[in-house]
């Protein structure tokens, strides 16, 4: 076969691979987004900027926009400050239990926002363990620490969520940088701090930049956490879109807000794309080579401090969640779990708990299947495509990730309920929306693995007598297979916990677990709260199981940006 023939064959193949994801994206993302824009700017069929003018001049909305921006900036900065030392500890130090810890920090990232919200309600409320300790030590003199409905709680919850993004992205690069570079700096007279500032920091800059961009996007479009922890007064644009839709029934207002948020998100994504391209060439070492056992007292102290942070920040909320799910009026017991499974829960949830669990698992499985197929096609297409095509589709699929779940859900609500695409009543809407949100993670997991398969491996197999099909089966498949499994597990965790889009689309009689938790939290009384905690614990267990299973596949790229 001639060079030209092979190239055009590759192009045809990559086009065939990229076409379905492109259609998927057009149908379920671009079309809904276009509908949002049209609804916002042309509500009656003609260009009407009055809503936009109203939104831009409304001081309360300006407050919301300002709060959205500054809490995102603050959350991002705080996450970097807390997580970069953790990234160092996990990337550079060797200690017993490191592998498990590295896998476990991923668990919060995949946790459903609703679960995180309720965990922090329990951790920071008046009945929190902190207050129990304060009371037992200080007696009546103790003050009650109640951080519910405060910005502090929101920021802490955001750090909880995004800790893993920084640890995986920055730590992932850190463990590949030759530690002798810092050693060299030390022997040339640099202190530890100078060596970090002069050598490691500049080399880590691309990873820090992309982690920051991602954390910024996630916190800028934060929804579930704010909805639960922010109370009535604190709202991000995302929450405002939800409120305008469900409470004010003002679709033009919701659309205009969504358009404004979209502009900000696209701008942030463009910056992210640019930062990704500016990675300097550098000598990499094998991961294991860069880790050294904890030797000095300083290192032990550093590691200890980071372990304390991880325990307090990442483990405590989940532990309190489990504890509160077991706490009843008279001691500990399984009352809340029993109530969830009993008949009376149905009145609150409109369906039985087992149905909610079943809905979650079924929707999650369907979403996973869609996301893995679309994501794998995109990744394979991007690898086989020459030139820019692959990159364009790859980046386009990052859009739903940054665009926010609420926009996706809201867009579906607007666009897919009237001809030509009438999905009204279709149960498919929920998994499609979840798949849209999970697909970028699939692509992000598969792409580096596909790119890393060394052509010399295939050549070696060929020289040893393997046919092309044998090569695919013996070389490519074992490597890709594990990555696909990991991607599937990750999408499942994301789909099961998805809240922002699902809350728009799940119909009253088909709630998923996050939606059921949100409904329970909205009801007064200790019993409902306890049941919300119990269901959150169940959901957290499912998520954690999925994430820890993925880690056993040792793909290593999951959750890296």
């Amino acid at each position, binding site marked *: 076969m001639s060079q030209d023939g092979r190239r055009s064959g590759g192009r045809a193949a990559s086009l065939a691979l990229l076409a379905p994801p492109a259609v998927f994206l057009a149908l379920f993302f671009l079309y809904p987004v276009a509908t949002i824009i049209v609804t916002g700017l042309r509500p009656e069929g003609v260009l009407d900027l009055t809503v936009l003018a109203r939104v831009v001049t409304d001081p309360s909305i300006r407050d919301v926009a300002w709060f959205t921006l500054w809490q995102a900036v603050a959350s991002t900065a705080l996450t970097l400050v807390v997580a970069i030392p953790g990234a160092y500890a996990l990337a550079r130090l060797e200690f017993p239990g490191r592998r498990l810890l590295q896998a476990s920090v991923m668990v919060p990232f995949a946790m459903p926002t609703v679960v995180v919200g309720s965990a922090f309600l329990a951790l920071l409320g008046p009945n929190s363990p902190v207050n129990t300790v304060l009371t037992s030590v200080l007696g009546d003199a103790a003050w009650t620490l109640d951080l519910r409905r405060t910005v502090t709680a929101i920021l802490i919850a955001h750090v909880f969520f995004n800790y893993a993004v920084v640890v995986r992205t920055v730590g992932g690069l850190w463990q590949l940088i030759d530690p002798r570079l810092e*050693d*060299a700096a*030390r*022997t*040339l007279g640099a202190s530890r701090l*100078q060596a970090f500032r*002069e050598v490691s920091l500049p080399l880590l800059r691309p990873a820090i930049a992309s982690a920051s961009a991602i954390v910024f996007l996630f916190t800028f479009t934060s929804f579930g956490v704010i909805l639960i922890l922010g109370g009535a007064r604190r709202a991000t644009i995302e929450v405002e879109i939800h409120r305008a839709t469900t409470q004010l029934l003002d679709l033009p207002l919701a659309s205009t807000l969504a358009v404004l948020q979209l502009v900000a998100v696209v701008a942030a994504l463009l910056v992210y794309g640019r930062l990704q391209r500016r990675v300097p060439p550098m000598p990499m070492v094998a991961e294991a080579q860069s880790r050294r056992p904890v030797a*000095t007292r300083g290192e032990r102290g550093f590691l200890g401090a980071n372990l304390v942070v991880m325990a307090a920040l990442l483990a405590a909320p989940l532990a309190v969640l489990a504890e509160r799910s077991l706490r009843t009026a008279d001691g500990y017991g399984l009352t809340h779990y029993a109530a969830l499974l009993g008949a009376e829960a149905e009145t609150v949830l409109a369906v039985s708990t087992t149905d909610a669990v079943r809905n979650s698992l079924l929707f999650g499985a369907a979403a996973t299947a869609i996301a893995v197929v679309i994501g794998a096609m995109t990744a394979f297409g991007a690898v086989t495509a020459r030139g820019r095509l692959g990159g364009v589709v790859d980046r386009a699929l990052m859009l739903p990730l940054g665009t926010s779940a609420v926009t996706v859900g809201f867009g579906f609500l607007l666009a897919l309920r009237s001809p030509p695409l009438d999905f009204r009543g279709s149960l498919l809407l929920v998994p499609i929306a979840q798949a849209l949100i999970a697909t970028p993670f699939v692509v992000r997991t598969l792409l580096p693995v596909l790119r890393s398969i060394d052509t010399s491996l295939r050549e070696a197999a060929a020289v040893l007598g393997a046919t092309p099909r044998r090569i695919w089966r013996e070389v490519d498949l074992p490597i890709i297979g594990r990555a696909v499994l990991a991607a599937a597990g990750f999408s499942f965790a994301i789909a099961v916990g998805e809240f922002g889009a699902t809350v728009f689309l799940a119909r009253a009689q088909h709630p998923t677990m996050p939606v059921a938790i949100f409904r329970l939290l909205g009801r007064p009384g200790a019993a409902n709260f306890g049941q919300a905690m119990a269901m959150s614990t169940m959901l957290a267990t499912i998520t954690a199981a999925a994430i820890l299973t993925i880690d056993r596949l040792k793909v290593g790229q999951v959750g890296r940006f």
Partner: protein
Amino acid sequence: MLDIRGLTVGYGAQTAVRELSLAAADTEVLGVIGPSGCGKSTLLRAVAGLQRPRSGQVLIDDRDVTGLRPDQRRIGLMFQEHALFPHRNVADNVAFGLRMQRLPRTEIAERVGEALDVVDLAGLERRSVTELSGGERQRVALARTIAPRPRLLMLDEPLGSLDRALQDRLLQDLPSLFAALGTTVVYVTHDQHEALTLADRVAVMREGRLVRVGAPHQVWRDPRTTFVATFLGLRHIVTARVRGRVVETPWGVLPAPPAPDGGEAVDGEHPLTILPSALRLATDTDPCRDGEHAVTADVQGLRFAGDHLVIDAQPSGAPPLKVAVRHDEPPRTGDRVTVAIAADGVRLLTEDR
């Protein structure tokens, strides 16, 4: 100048360096050799302060620096594979140590220029280090290490990643560079040839301990242990039996050499080696002389070895002898030859493997 006393270094259950004591004088070039994994690099890291020893001391100019951080020691360490900063250009790499000393900008520029002149890289200041060839990278690393004028210069396998021709050229350049710098040099390598060429004194390490220290020709002519003899690439290591004034070797009975410690060898079995220089082919025009022992052997093969050939001579009932011969009129495979073994090139060894 450098004085290492009873140094033990290791992580956890592993001990890389055990109770090692070693000193180097001013301007001395000390070669530390040993197989990979023997603890050479760990020794350098401990002297540089990058790794804390479990016990023992490091003294520099009679001052104990064991508790000092690496940045307080002013020791230059050139790393294996060079560890150049990929985000800085050539000049900025070389300037790094000078900037850490907070020297004025003009002086830094001047000394960067000097250092690059020394390694013959003037003109490449603005080049990115990722674009350099292996040899250029090696020289940038050297310039970066010497620019801050360290009191002690340590090099860890500096020629390891270079091709043979470049290695040979740099081997010729380095002695004059060391002389010009006038510092003490500790040179670590697994390549005995490199160390024997460059060093005033070599220290042979094995499993974290020193097994032999001496001038290159002393160590070469008198390896003393089977480990050192094997590591130096000596062949013809066999077991022989000393009986009074003679030693019975597979190649015949020879006068007994002194024991490795210089005393009289005791009767019994000892490892023994014949130095390569003690073997030659006896011919009709140049027959065996006094002090030489003749062995009849068949030529089984010839191997090209640069400026000479090595023949594989197989005596009957004894291990083969590798004998260097000149290119002119070499014997052919199958020829019967007489190998002359010079008795003063036979060494008894102690077993330590």
